């Protein structure tokens, strides 16, 4: 299936969870301070293991940067 992550298409196995996506992305610095939205809805950290991504899902993976 194809999932759009931060605006770029990624091919992932069907049934990939949010946690699985994070592992595949190899996010630098680990998961601290990371937040995730799928199709413009927040996915709480406690649901990363159980939330499966659908084909065509639009995922935003965000973290803190300098600002404000």
């Amino acid at each position, binding site marked *: 299936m194809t999932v759009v992550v931060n605006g770029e298409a990624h091919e992932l196995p069907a049934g990939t969870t949010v946690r699985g996506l994070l592992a595949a992305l190899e996010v630098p610095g680990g998961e*601290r301070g*990371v*937040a995730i939205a799928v199709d413009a809805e927040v996915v709480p950290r406690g649901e990363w293991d159980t939330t499966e991504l659908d084909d065509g899902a639009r995922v935003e993976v965000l973290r803190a940067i*300098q600002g*404000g």
Partner: protein
Amino acid sequence: MSVTDQTVAADPFVVAGRELHSRLLLGTGGFRSLEAIAAAIEASGTELVTVALRRIDPEARGSIVDVLESSGVQLLPNTAGCFTARDAVLTAKLAREAFATDWVKLEVIGDDRTLLPDAPALLEAAEQLVDDGFVVLPYTNDDPILARRLEDVGCAAVMPLGSPIGSGMGLLNTYNLRLIRERAGVPVILDAGVGTTSDAALAMELGCDAVLCASAISRAEDPTAMARAVRLGVEGGRLAYRAGRIPRRLHAQASSPDEGVAEF
């Protein structure tokens, strides 16, 4: 402890029930390195520091969250870059997940050129976030009526601009800022436009409860020294406000006695 230090210590700044010992909030945008942020935090004495949320950068090195945690400050996530109430609300909810804080510096921007707040969208987003349990600190225009409306919907403070973000033009409408301060029942935090220490001092002399400063410190030639300078400006301005300045007069008033002047 000097008299001045005692006066500062006895004058806590309280936002949403949280007592802060510094009236200077620090924005982290524009610093050249994480080390420079850490040094500025120490020099500024700040306890509340803003961060933004952006897409992960695979090339990023170091973590601002680590730097802020080791400095012992509270993170204040912002919604910078949001142009609609919907995006700002979603960003605030993501920040709450990322940082385990329900505090948010709410920004809903009207356009890229001015970065001025979009008033109707700001009010809409503020209302939604307050209803969702957030402690909302909105970046707002220097508009006394809008500030009142933001307070009415439950914002924990109002953050009027002195002038546009990053412009360093100082306080363009001190009259409006005084009106905001006069009516507000929540803290007034001067946000945006500070160019140097005197701007921060003036905001405090007008009665603002605190100042948020980013570019003036982060983009200064020596950010650490400027952090210290703005801190002193904020403290000096606060002391002057509480001390009560003399009224302005059109004509001179002699400071030496009129009586007993020698006649030659």
